[in-house]
Structure formats: structure tokens, C-alpha cells
């Protein structure tokens, strides 16, 4: 199927603007648990979807095959004309976008031995059971709009390992890379080794105690908070009113040490040179030394808020709408190492991962989340025991304001949507509220 042809037909049939996106997908995933492979999956798919704007109305449609293309688009245009106007749509990105190319070269990597490499690295630390996945994602993307015709090949590898020790207590690590160079550093051996080390530390965990603690967050764990920050930076979420950053441009939203940028040009999952309406992507400094500088925009949200797009328009599903979404959140590193930061803690915790983040009040940022994969109680700079069964019950803005220090090393972390393609360092946060069932 041909995106250019779909665009041409849409315009001939009366669309004012259209964006046709074709994706050829060839993904391979190997899943393993209990030191054995469970399944090897492969996806061989092709999709073509067209965003259509006509007379101020918008819709999106999937095209199943070339023969049905004209009829499907014709039907979609008739469908769109019966819709109410969509005042949120302010036009597709109208300028010419030059192809820049991206740093993604893992598409020809053979991952078949990666599970074994990850398992062996974990088992070296005395692990009993290892589970995880190696997932190679390969996409050819063609995007054609009234103003641009673009193509690029995106590829990335996600490596996740979770390890269980003799007490059944886990450790976990998960990374994303788009280049062979990064893979050599953050590939299967890295995650196996790190998860194995965490599990080895997670000896006989006991129920934790409620209170307020200084917490050293692992990059994977801090990445989860950064994921929430990234989602709240979307101008769509701000416009709807569900973001905890509503009406805060120019305000101090975090401590001085926090600088966060969306970096789609940087190697890692989320790398791309153009967004889903054909705008060039760029690195966008969203929070600078704790001050909120900008939201993340599509062309439409930018026009609505009187600014320029940041190149974050994302297909929300069969091109039915183009809502801003971050591509790859990157936190600027600090100056100290993990051990140094740990030594600053008189009484606190080191937490490896969290999951199940839920909001009681999304607009205010009130939430809770559950630590897992290693919760370590620290006294006088030393880990003294492992904990279990606690919860972080906090406010996201308070958490951001209480960041005391960031680590000097940044890890590419990505795990199951909880932490979604983030570059994050260790983070030392003061006065974190810990609750539990005890």
C-alpha cells in the first residue's frame, strides 16, 4: 500500500488536509521465565491509516488493502462531514520538513542468544529463577501530508530481566536502546547483571515501617515518576485540565536540580526525526532548573495556546487524532555517584522500582505507587536490611520539589508503560511519605 496514493485520493475527494501514515512492522520478542524460554513471537504487519480534515471536521481511517483504498477514503470523508466541527484542530504542520536521519541501527541484530546471556549474567549472582524478555522492534514509517513526504526506519531493543533469590525476593532491570553501541553497554548482560545484584541484596525482606524518609530512587524507579511528569507535560492533558502543570508556565515546579528535556533525537526508544503530522522533532527543554518552560505541543495545541509546535504530535490510533505526547524524556544528570548519594542518607530507603501508580487527584498530583524489586532500609549511609509491603503516598509536585540530588550516570530505562522510554539518573529525594498495611 502506498501512503502517497492515499493522500492524493483523500485530497481529490475533498479533504482539506490529510496525513497518510504507513507502517511496516517486523518485531521479534522472546519471553522467558523460570530459566526457560516460554515463547518466541514475531509480528509481520502492515498498516495504512489516514487522518482527514474536511470543512473543520476530522476523522481517521484504516485502509485494509489497495483495492479498497478509494472506497474507504470516500466513506471516511462522508463520515467526517456529518461530524460536529473540531475547534481543537488548527491545521497540520504546514512547513517543509527536511529528512535528517536517526541513530538507530539495531534492526539487523540477532537476539536469539540474548535471553541466555541475560540469564547467565543474573545467575552469576546466585539467582534461583530468571524471567524477562528481549524485544526487537523494527518499523518502516512512511508519512505523507499536504506538505511533506517522509520516511524513516526506526528500531529499538527492550531488555527486561527480573530475578528471584532463595527467599523468592526479586530484583529487576530494564533498558531500551536503538544503537549497537548502546546495546553493548545497556543490553542483556547489563540488565541480567543489575537485576541479579539487586536480588542478591534483597535478602529475606521484612515488612517496612511507615514514616517520612529520604529515598534514593534507582533510575528505573525515578523513571516512573519522570514518565508521569512527561505525560502531564502534554498540552492535550493541560488543555483538558487533567495535568498537574495547568497554568504553571514560568513557575517553579521542582527543585533547582531538576532539568527535564524531551529528546527524540537521542538514541533510545522514541527516537525519530519527524512526528505524526510531519513536523521535525527536536529536543525540548520542558523543565529547566525546576522552572516549567513549555508544554509539549502538536501544531494544533501550539496554535491554540499561541506558540509553536515542539514536534510532539502522536497518532492516538488509526490517525483519528494527533495529540501531543513525549518521545523520550531525559533528565539532566547531577554530579555524584550512587554510593556517594547513599552515604548521605542517615535514615532512609533505596528503592529499585515501583508499579501501579494511581491518582486520587490527577489535577493536583496526589497519587500512590508501590515499590518492588528491592526496597532497602539505609542507616548512616549503609544498607542494613531489605523491606517489603510499603507504598509511596505522595504528591507529584512535592516529590519534584524535594529532589535534593541527581546522580552523574544516566540509564535508558523502559518497563511496561510504568517507565516509558526515559533517560534517568539516580535521584535522592527528601521527605517522602511511606505508608503500608502494617
Amino acid at each position: 500500500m502506498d501512503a502517497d496514493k492515499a493522500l492524493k485520493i483523500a485530497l481529490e475527494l475533498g479533504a482539506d488536509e490529510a496525513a497518510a501514515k504507513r507502517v511496516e512492522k517486523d518485531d521479534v520478542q522472546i519471553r522467558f521465565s523460570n530459566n526457560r524460554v516460554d515463547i518466541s513471537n514475531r509480528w509481520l504487519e502492515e498498516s495504512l491509516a489516514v487522518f482527514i480534515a474536511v470543512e473543520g471536521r476530522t476523522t481517521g481511517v484504516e485502509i485494509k488493502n489497495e483495492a479498497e483504498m478509494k472506497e474507504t477514503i470516500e466513506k471516511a470523508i462522508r463520515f467526517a462531514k456529518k461530524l460536529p466541527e473540531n475547534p481543537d484542530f488548527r491545521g497540520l504542520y504546514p512547513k517543509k520538513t527536511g529528512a535528517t536521519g536517526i541513530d538507530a541501527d539495531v534492526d539487523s541484530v540477532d537476539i536469539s542468544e540474548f535471553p541466555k546471556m541475560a540469564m547467565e549474567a543474573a545467575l552469576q549472582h546466585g539467582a534461583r529463577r530468571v524471567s524477562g524478555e528481549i524485544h526487537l522492534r523494527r518499523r518502516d514509517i512512511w508519512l505523507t501530508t499536504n506538505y511533506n513526504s517522509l520516511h524513516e526506519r526506526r528500531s529499538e531493543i527492550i531488555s527486561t530481566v527480573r530475578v528471584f533469590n532463595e527467599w523468592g525476593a526479586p530484583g529487576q532491570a530494564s533498558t531500551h536502546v536503538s544503537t549497537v553501541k548502546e546495546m553493548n553497554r545497556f543490553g542483556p548482560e547489563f540488565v541480567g547483571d543489575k537485576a541479579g545484584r539487586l536480588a542478591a541484596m534483597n535478602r529475606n525482606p521484612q515488612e517496612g515501617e511507615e514514616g517520612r524518609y529520604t529515598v534514593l530512587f534507582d533510575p528505573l524507579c525515578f523513571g516512573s515518576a519522570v514518565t508521569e511528569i512527561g505525560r502531564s507535560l502534554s498540552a492535550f492533558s493541560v488543555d483538558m485540565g487533567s495535568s498537574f502543570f495547568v497554568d504553571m508556565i514560568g513557575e517553579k515546579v521542582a527543585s533547582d536540580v531538576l532539568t527535564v528535556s524531551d529528546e527524540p533525537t537521542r538514541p533510545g526508544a522514541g527516537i525519530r526525526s519527524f512526528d505524526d503530522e510531519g513536523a521535525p522533532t527536536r529536543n525540548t527543554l520542558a523543565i529547566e532548573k525546576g522552572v516549567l518552560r513549555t508544554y509539549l505541543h502538536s501544531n494544533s495545541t501550539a496554535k491554540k495556546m499561541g506558540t509553536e509546535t515542539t514536534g510532539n504530535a502522536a497518532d492516538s490510533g488509526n490517525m483519528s487524532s494527533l495529540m501531543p505526547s513525549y518521545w523520550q524524556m531525559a533528565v539532566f544528570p547531577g554530579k555524584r555517584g550512587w554510593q556517594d548519594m547513599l552515604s548521605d542518607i542517615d535514615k532512609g530507603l533505596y528503592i529499585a522500582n515501583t508499579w501501579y501508580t494511581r491518582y486520587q487527584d490527577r489535577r493536583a498530583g496526589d497519587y500512590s505507587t508501590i515499590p518492588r524489586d528491592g526496597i532497602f532500609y539505609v542507616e548512616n549511609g549503609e544498607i542494613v536490611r531489605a523491606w517489603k509491603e510499603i507504598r509511596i503516598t505522595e504528591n507529584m509536585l512535592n516529590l519534584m520539589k524535594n529532589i535534593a540530588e541527581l546522580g552523574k550516570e544516566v540509564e535508558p530505562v523502559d518497563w511496561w508503560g510504568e517507565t516509558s522510554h526515559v533517560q534517568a539518573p539516580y535521584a535522592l529525594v527528601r521527605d517522602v511519605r511511606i505508608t503500608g498495611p502494617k
Partner: protein
Amino acid sequence: MKSVAEKVLALGQSKADYFEVRAEVRRYSVNFMKNGTLTASTEGEDRGLAIRAIVDGGMGAAYTNKTDNASLEKAVESAIEQARKVSKDSDVRLSEEKAYKDFWTVEQKRKIEDVGNEEKVEYLKEIEQGLTSSGIPAVVRMQVLRDILTEKHILTSEGTDISSLLPQIEYFYFMVVASEKGNEQAYSQLAWAGGYDQWDRWNPLGRTRDMASILFRSINEGKMLKDGKMDLIVGPEVTGIAAHESCGHPTEADRILGREAYLAGESFVKPDMVGQRIGSDIVNVVDDPTVEHSFGYYKYDDEGVPARRRYLYKNGLINEFLQNRETAAMTGTKSNGAARASNWDREPIVRMSTTFVEPGDYSLDEMLEDVKYGVYMKSFTEWNIDDVRYNQKYVGREAYLIENGSIKGAVRRPVIELTTPTFWGAVDAIGKDMDFVGATCGKSDPEQGVPVWTGGPHMRLRDVRMRW
């Protein structure tokens, strides 16, 4: 699509120890309204095939939506090649099950196909107008109306031949009410298997307006009580989420056996814990895909095994695990029909359907009259549970103080944070009422959100630690 599935079966069945094809066509429409603006509206069709093969103990799968002969051949070869490649590090078996041939569907009185998109958009506009004209400051109003008609064909090398046509509709809203005293938020998912005849019975306009009033009252009149142990009556919505999270998930055999370990986690329930006490002896928690018109309804699962009711906790004891053919083979038992795949591009894994607490014989008044001081938590907003399904939290959305057997004023954000045995062990009375809500249950990677119902009656829990 059935002829395509038959072609694929013919291509692959002689090349694997086990070979399975699942072909699906999904005709859908989605309307998304944000604060009164219809920001997305689409209808269309999604179709494709899942091919699963077992060769020498290795399992491989290929998923494709390309149906020309060359692409189908490539997908078949790919599934077999994937299986062969991992067989040296793998030992997958499936339980032996009878092969069925059947067709099933769900009746629609007002068919999805007969409802035009303009009418669906009008539904959302009417609710939007109802909310904005109510005078309550609902500053966030998000609505999604989705319908889907799924045609599915499951064919296996063992002779299974199941076809189905499943209609589902789903209305989701999220709202935030804000005032000087703060915000309260709510969401709800009204969903069922069937046609649009259900729309009016749901009364979404009335429900959303009521919800806005409840949130407004909670902000302005809701009291924060002193932390402490007290009695708690929970409504069906809270009963349902607890049944789903701390009974349904921990009894999924794949979690118990570790296959989901790196994602949703494992379980505090171990393979040898059947018969162990987990709650008071009046607690019966069930998962049942055959509840008529339920959002998770099916007659056969995605491995072609007949669906049936499963008693997960029976008389307060751990009773049965949810099984697919892979986990059943690992535990030396039979599948109880819990294999589900969220779409044609996903593998069938162990899932819930409709998970609920069986009703007892109390009325709400009878439960209230024995409570001197406590909380009635009718619904919840925030919740979460750890990855072994032991440490859980629910925060009340609509909640009231109970004093001397009577419901008094609104209580704001009461929190219970407790373990699974503490929750189910505290239950001393179960209502004779019954209600269900829709939900989308997440699991696996790539993510598989499957439609479910959660529910049950009111329940009374004694001496529970409450906090604010």
C-alpha cells in the same frame, strides 16, 4: 476470514506438534469527547491472524494482517521457525482437551450495525449539556463511546473449529469537579456484551450528573475522620475491585507459576495452597465467563476450551486457579477455559472474565443496624495492589459516616490499606444485592487489555484500620 484461517491451518498443521490459527475481524467505532469537543471520531475494521505452533517443546507465534499467499506462507514458516529455534531452551506442553466444533454469538436487540454515528455523537452531546448545565464545576469532562463487533475463528491441528460473533459496547467517562476546597475526580466504565438497547438502561446522563453532585458534596461537605479501627461497609464497586485484584489475579495460574513474573508479577498464592484459608467462611469469589451479556462474556476461550464458572475462593478457602492449556499441563490438570487474547496480534494467556463475590442474605439496612461507628465506602477512586496481590489500597470516592446504624454525612477520601487475608478475613456479612461494572484488565507484554466485569454485593467488614 474463516477461509483464510483454513488455508493457514492447511499450510502449517503437518509441520508442528501443535498448530493453531485464530483469525479475527473487528468492526468498531470510537467517539472521544473532551470538555465538549469531539476530538476524535472514527469507524473502521481491523483484521488479522495469530498463528501459534509448538515444535519439540518450543512455542512460536506469528501475527500478520497480510493475507496474500506469500505473506501467509511466510507467517506460517515464521511461527514454526520461532518454535524450533527456542525448543532447545524450552519445554512447553498443552493439557489434553476435547476438540469442539461450534458457533456462538450474543443477542443484540438493537444492533450495533443499526446505530449511526450521528446518534452516538448525540448521546455524548446530551451528557455534556447535562453536565455543563448542572451548575456544578466539572472542569474536566472526558467521554469515550466505543462499540465493537468481533468475528473470530479458532482452528487447531487437533480439530477445534470454533467461530463466534461478539458485540460489545462501552461508555467511559472521567471527570474532575473543582472548587476552592480542592478537586475530586471520578471515572466509570459502563460496558456489556450486546447491542445499544442497553444504552437507556444505563442512564448515563443521570449517572454522570449524580456523580458530579457526589464529588461536589464530597469536596464541600466531606469530613475527614480520626484514624482508627472501625467497621466498614463497602458497596458493590469496592467489592468487585477487591474480588478482581486480590482474588482473581492471585489465582491466575501463570502468575503462580512465574510466567508473568517480569510484568504483572507473581502471586502470594503458591501451587500447594489450595485449601488454605484466605477469608471468613462466608466468602465465595467466582470468575465466570458465562454470565449473560457480561463484558468478558465468551462461550469458548481462545484455545477452544468451553467456558465455565470457577470458584476461586470457596467458603473462605483458596479453591481453584484460572488455567489455560499451558498452565494446566504444568500443574497436571485440565484447562478451565481461561485463555484469552485481547486481539489477533496477541497470544492467549490466563485471564479473568467476570469476577465477583457471590451474594449472601443481608439487606444493606441489616448490615448497617449492627454498626455503631464506621464508614460506608460506596465507591472508590485511587487503588493499587502489589505484584503478589497481597498489599492493597482503596480510597473512597462516595463515602459516608455510619453512627448507631444510620448513614450520616459525607466522608472525604477514607483510605483502607491492608493485606488480602486481612480484607477477606474481616468480612462478616454479605448482601443479597448484586451489581457489576465494566473494566479493562491489563496484563502481559505487549499489553493485553481485556474486557471484564467486576462486581458483587455490599459487604460488611469488621474492625478495619481506616485512615485519612
